[in-house]
């Protein structure tokens, strides 16, 4: 399993357009992808679920942990990191 901790860059946090983009990218990969808020003890949630992402409520500057399992796990994490670290206008 691969995992990486990334910092949220978009101004409104992982919400609205960046969140929707994130889910789209998750669906492009075979890997089983989960995300969590490393500042809590909560269990990782399904990265392909908008409800689960909204539930994390991650704000700009906060960290998110992405974990992926599968043949394209590393590529998936690279692509997701790009979404998360791209500041929105």
């Amino acid at each position: 399993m691969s995992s990486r901790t990334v910092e949220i860059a978009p101004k409104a946090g992982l919400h609205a357009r960046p969140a929707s983009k994130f889910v789209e990218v998750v669906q492009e990969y075979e890997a089983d992808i989960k995300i969590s808020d490393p500042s809590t003890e909560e269990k990782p949630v399904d990265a392909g679920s908008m409800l689960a992402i909204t539930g994390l409520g991650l704000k700009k500057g906060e960290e998110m942990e992405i974990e992926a399992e599968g043949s394209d796990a590393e590529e998936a994490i690279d692509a997701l990191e790009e979404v998360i670290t791209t500041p929105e206008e």
Partner: protein
Amino acid sequence: MSSKELQSLISEETIELDREFENKIDAIKGLLQLIDDTGNVKDREKALNALKEREEEATTGVGKGIGIPHAKTEAVTEPAAAFIRAEDGVDFDAADGEPARLLFMLLFPEGTEDEYLEVLSSISRSLIHDDVREKLLNAETPENAFEIIEEEVSE
């Protein structure tokens, strides 16, 4: 009272069960009307435009039969919320394709970034649980739905 709590933003007056809607915009107008009826919306058109803009940016149909249309707008001075259970599912453009029956609306004044995200995330976290959605789908009266929101849909 913590601003995180949906229960402080919603009341039986802003809850309605088993409404029928043609589409997403129709549902959004129905939710907004409930909040407007309480006298908390200064400018209905402005609020509606903010909600529509937010939907254009990305749908608030978050899947599992839930829609949470929301916006920050000068049209309100205090945060406000409404809940409608749709009789039949409304197409909310959710990624999972599931029509939405549990519809929550949140309106926040400008400049309330954090509170707004906290209420949204606390609603979402509660609704991830199948049993909470089931309870809301089975609520018999607005009073009953309010009790469920009070007990389950807040932190």
